[in-house]
């Protein structure tokens, strides 16, 4: 087996230290007793307790969760449809415009997306609040979903769908019984991506929200503007912990499945 050279070992160590040390410090200091974030005064979980008492944060968290669940679910449906239309739709009127509209939001600065949606909502007289945030988040995250799903679809063996048609399935049945189960992992990761994008978004939500709805990132933003607080550290730790657990579990599960599948394939070839 090849061993890493000194240069490569150093690059990896420094690179990953750079990526993870800031978060690690944040997590460690969320358990700090002192109100002064940079002075260690002993272990304590008091900031987590205070966070749980903080109505404003809890309300914002609830709003954020609602927005994220609803918008990512709609975005997954729309994004999957868009991906299907792009990869399998063949030629249709305005296809170029459509694919442009699917990909443009990926590179659009958030300030512009936010501003333009705000102008629309005001133009049509829609009350700004949870609904407008959901609409805005659905719009930009459906594009991410469609990129994830369409990259899976484009490597999808088309003859599987043809086989289903050939065996008597209607096009819709072929999609439901064959395509969807096979691309399901991509659809799920599209949903997760949409969900975290929505959880994360500050700029667009700030533009399109009204006084009735404040999301967690907006709440964090307004406290952070005033400096580092142990409460925000605690909140950050919780969020990082949740995401890390989710992502690591997902990748372990998919890795285990892959390993099992490869083992079974080898066994089947040997058994012949």
């Amino acid at each position, binding site marked *: 087996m090849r061993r890493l050279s000194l240069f490569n070992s150093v690059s990896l160590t420094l690179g990953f230290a750079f990526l993870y040390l800031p978060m690690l410090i944040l997590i460690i200091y969320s358990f700090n007793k002192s109100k002064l974030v940079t002075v260690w005064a002993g272990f304590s979980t008091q900031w987590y307790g205070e966070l749980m008492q903080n109505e404003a944060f809890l309300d914002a968290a609830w709003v954020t969760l609602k927005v994220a669940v609803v918008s990512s679910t709609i975005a997954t449906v729309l994004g999957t449809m868009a991906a299907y239309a792009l990869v399998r739709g063949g030629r249709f009127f305005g296809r170029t415009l459509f694919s442009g509209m699917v990909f443009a939001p990926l590179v659009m600065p958030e300030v*512009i997306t936010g501003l333009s949606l705000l102008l629309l909502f005001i133009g049509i007289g829609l009350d700004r609040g949870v609904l407008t945030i959901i609409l805005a988040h659905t719009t930009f995250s459906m594009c991410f979903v469609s990129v994830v799903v369409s990259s899976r679809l484009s490597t999808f063996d088309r003859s599987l769908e043809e086989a289903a048609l050939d065996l008597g399935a209607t096009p819709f049945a072929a999609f439901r019984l064959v395509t969807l189960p096979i691309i399901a992992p991509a659809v799920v990761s599209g949903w997760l991506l949409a969900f975290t994008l929505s959880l994360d978004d500050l700029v667009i939500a700030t533009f399109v929200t009204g006084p009735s709805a404040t999301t967690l990132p907006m709440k964090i933003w307004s406290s952070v503007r005033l400096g580092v607080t142990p409460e925000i550290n605690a909140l950050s730790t919780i969020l990082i912990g949740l995401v890390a657990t989710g992502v690591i579990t997902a990748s372990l599960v998919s890795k285990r499945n892959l390993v099992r599948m490869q083992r079974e394939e080898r066994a089947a070839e040997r058994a012949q």
Partner: protein
Amino acid sequence: MRRAVLIAVPYLWLLALFLIPFFMVFKISMSDAILAIPPYGPTMKDGFRELISQLDFENFVFLTTDDLYWKAYLSSLKIAFIATVLTLMVGYPVAYAMARAPEEWRPTLMMLVILPFWTSFLIRVYAWIGILSTNGFLNQFLMGIGVISEPLTILNTNTAVYIGIIYTYVPFMILPIYAALDRLDASLIEAAEDLGCSRFKAFWLITFPLSKNGVFAGCFLVFIPALGEFVIPSLLGGSSTLMIGKVLFEEFSFNRDWPVASAVAVVLLLILIVPIVLFQMNQQRAQEAEQ
């Protein structure tokens, strides 16, 4: 029939919530600010003919007269460019080392690069405030080991903005470069060395040119979002840090001058078209090269 529905639903959604708002930005960038709700005129209520006749390029002219704006554009370009180069310098060695790492480590390393991308952007930027502030961890550490005697002022300067951009966008740099290097046939390097190249020479003549598409892709993926960045300059930058995303946000929320904010947005988009088109061309070329 079903195909039509399949296409129409996402199509109409994007038309209504992406394209139309986009045109509204254009339209409003040519309107005048008025003290009303909405705070610009004319609107559709004034009739179409009236609407068209009152639109003008006044706001764009205004952008050229007040040097705040063009300085902000230039400074955004400069910051985004320098940050991209720095991110490349940080990201390339990591991507290279990942591609050279033993096969069974690679999925884990990949996951470690992707993981920060899933965690909150805001929190990751926030983490640096505690590190870079005058009595933050970096200064404490450096003074502790005796490198400096006075704390450095890093927070609220452009340096902090660079660090923030590198930190948040380095995964975007690492992944495409790693993908390009991972595909690289190891026997090419062996062939080059067999033909008399030194290790370093083999890297410059073989590895680096073949990872060029990954490097370009990574650079655009960092440069494009960095140009319109708002959160990083607002949190880590100082009052002297001029970035167009920040200017736009302030124009909109503090000055409430929506027409000027829209004009700023339109110009930003025009500037962005160049790198986006270059990025697309690069991706297309890479795809063709693969076939």
